[in-house]
């Protein structure tokens, strides 16, 4: 596919389109933050960004994108700095509409692993950084959208370790575990947009990005994907969307 945009740009654009106006979004640094900033500048001017470092309503300064959720670049021109615990408590109370997340490993039920690969928890083959706020965001936001590169090694039948619970074992497993709110609504990848069957909670294809075939998606997915009744094709990024993104990240630190 000879696109005039990078995979990261496509992710950010499609991610941004998921956000409605007059809402709040818990966004991590990198592509999620770019997607939120894009939505804010384009169709959701009354969107509030909330960042894990205890930051509400920042205005990201073009060219000074934060590397972490805990630095001045992430807090630039914020409206409130409530502290980390109280920021998450706003989510637990129900004030956070969307959560944007990534993930090293994701399975057919939208469970995410960012803790350990192989071996057991205490003596893993590979120790990953850990949950950070991912477990909280996926547990407490009204709706969670996962943004990730689509690779077979990431899309596995069952994650080695459930760091962040999606739909757990499917059906009403999440509710039975005491997670009475929220859930993963969408997985936006470099190949398409995925949702979950309302009954079984198994992942299904809902849209394919321009030039992407279902076979190509299956090739890059380590488990059997269901299909939505109607599979749409993603609207290509507009020049306007791409222009805003490129202004935000001129050094292409995250846009690739």
């Amino acid at each position, binding site marked *: 596919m000879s696109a005039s945009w990078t995979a990261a740009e496509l992710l950010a654009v499609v991610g941004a389109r998921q956000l409605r*106006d007059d*809402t709040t979004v818990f966004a991590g640094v990198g592509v999620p933050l770019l997607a939120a900033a894009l939505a804010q500048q384009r169709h959701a001017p009354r969107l509030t960004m909330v960042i894990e470092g205890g930051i*509400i309503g920042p*205005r990201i300064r073009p060219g000074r994108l934060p590397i972490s959720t805990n630095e001045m670049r992430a807090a630039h021109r914020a409206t409130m700095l*409530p502290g980390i615990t109280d920021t998450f408590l706003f989510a637990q109370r129900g*004030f956070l509409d969307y959560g944007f997340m990534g993930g090293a490993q994701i399975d057919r039920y939208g469970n995410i692993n960012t803790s350990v690969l192989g071996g057991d928890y205490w003596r893993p083959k590979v120790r990953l950084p850990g949950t950070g706020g991912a477990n909280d965001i996926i547990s407490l936001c009204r709706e969670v959208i996962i943004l990730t590169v689509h690779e077979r090694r990431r899309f596995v039948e069952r994650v080695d370790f459930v760091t962040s619970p999606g739909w757990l074992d499917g059906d009403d497993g999440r509710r039975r575990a005491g997670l009475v709110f929220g859930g993963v609504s969408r997985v936006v990848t470099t190949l398409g947009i995925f949702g979950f069957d309302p009954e079984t909670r198994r992942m299904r294809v809902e849209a394919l990005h321009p030039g992407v075939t279902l076979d190509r998606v299956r090739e890059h997915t380590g488990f059997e994907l269901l299909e939505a009744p109607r599979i749409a094709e993603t609207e290509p990024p507009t020049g306007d969307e791409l222009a805003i993104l490129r202004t935000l990240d001129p050094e292409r630190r995250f846009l690739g």
Partner: protein
Amino acid sequence: MAARRRLEAKAKSAGEKLTSLEDAAARVRDGDVIAAGGCLYSRTPLALVREILRQRRQGLTLVRNLMCTEGELMMAAGAARRVVTAWMSIGLPWGVSKVMREHVESGTVVMEEWSHLALGLRFRAAAMGVPFVPALTMLGSDLVPVGGLQTVRDPYTGATLAAVPALFPDVAILHVHRADVFGNCQIDGYRHMDADIAAAAATVLVTAEEIVPEEEIRRHPDRTVVPGFVVDALVHVPFGSYPHECYGLYEADFDHFGEYAAAIDARGMRALADYLDRYVYGPPTWSDYLDLFGGERLARQARLARELTA
């Protein structure tokens, strides 16, 4: 958990919230549970209380940690059927509230008493989005059955603790020092319980002494105590707590309390009916109301406040 569903269903906008007292107060419905910010005669949202009374709301439950004249007026006006509080009167020099005694002893108003911390934790638990928080207070006292306080067993040590239940008000009414048009609120001095009350309520109405440019809020984000997406209606009301105080801006008008209390001592509940006519139902706007005190009086109280906080 119904409380959370109610919030999820509501728009959490970063848009403008500025409106009038009438419009803001109109969001209160008969029978609502209203939590008022501030404490005793400090930062009481009196302009909103007055407008709620002018709109003749009925059957309200007023929740406030320490209640003062705002509680007396709501009782006397017949607006409050129940109060949930830790303490009610004006202050030491004026003795036990005669209005409270009249209404509670006669049974026209129910007074549900919680300890000061317990009431604070009821707001805190709601703000945290949990049905209760454990505590070591109120145990063993006769207050336990009054509000139906339960206990909970610590799964780690087996110890028994008070399980203070979350309180989710239908409406929170707050008065703050400054806010931008988007409802990002800042408070100077003591914060009382306002931040928890705002996060606990389904609808949040705020009056502010000053509406400032967004830039001023963004210049000192560490002073913001209520984020805009929590606020539903914002009204610009200078001296919005008068004759109660606002930290650093004006001291409580103790002379006015004295006159008010003396009238009640002299003429009982009839004095309150007159007071309501003169200060609540009479003056159409808040500035008409402030004129009853006069600019000199307000200036004096402002000077006293500066002396104490300079």
